[in-house]
């Protein structure tokens, strides 16, 4: 269960490129690809093994014109999806 204090950890086996307004995440051994939009690319770049979800949301609010509630809802949904796909894990 994700909380605002959770720290998302990117899977070190993911290869990625940020291009234009999106990021392409490749999981070579699983043969899977995830393309994320501009906000997703920013969130991905913020995953540094230290930032909490709360800190990521604050960063998103400062970079995009979005209210905190919407940013929180969208960020948690996005990170949950990445966790489900094993692109990200949550620090215990």
């Amino acid at each position, binding site marked *: 269960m994700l909380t605002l204090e959770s720290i998302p950890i990117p899977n070190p086996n993911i290869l990625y490129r940020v291009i234009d307004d999106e990021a392409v995440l490749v999981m*070579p051994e699983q043969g899977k690809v995830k393309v994320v939009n501009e906000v997703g690319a920013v969130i991905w770049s913020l995953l540094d093994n230290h930032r909490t979800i709360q800190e990521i949301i604050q960063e998103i609010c400062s970079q995009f014109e979005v209210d905190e509630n919407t940013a929180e809802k969208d960020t948690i949904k996005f990170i949950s999806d990445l966790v489900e796909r094993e692109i990200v894990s949550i620090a215990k």
Partner: protein
Amino acid sequence: MSEVQKHHPQQMSSHHDVIADILETDLSYGDVVQLNVVSNSMQPLMSIGDQVIAEITPSDEIEQGDIVVIRRNHDYLTHRIINQKHNTWVTKGDNNVLPDPKISQDKLIGRVTIIKKGNRSINLQSQQWVFLNPLLAKLSSFESRAFSIHPYFRLPFRFTIRTIQSILF
């Protein structure tokens, strides 16, 4: 790679280019990559929906008959090497009549080692495939030459290739 196919063609081309670039530059020798088969050009060995495991391999370890993943233009393809000369290869899909245009060896991404067909796996590094792959490459090459003389002349080669592969399945 299935998910990329959900996007419209222009995006797909761009994403395939990025993926090919990642596979070409970010992986090291010995790393493996799994790819979904998206064409039937290598049937019956590989069909749409199968998966292949390719190992990143230096080009000087590749031999005639190996099935390789190579970068071609903005995409990548998985075909068999039927001929090699200097720094170029001629590849061909087992199910195609004609070979692909010659390609430089520096376009290599990796060598296919395993083909996954549902619950079954074909290990291309097993003794029988190591023996048969060069033979299949020769037959495939002869098939193309025979076809250029007359389309019917290819049929004995096609039949032999199909028979060998069917026996092994």
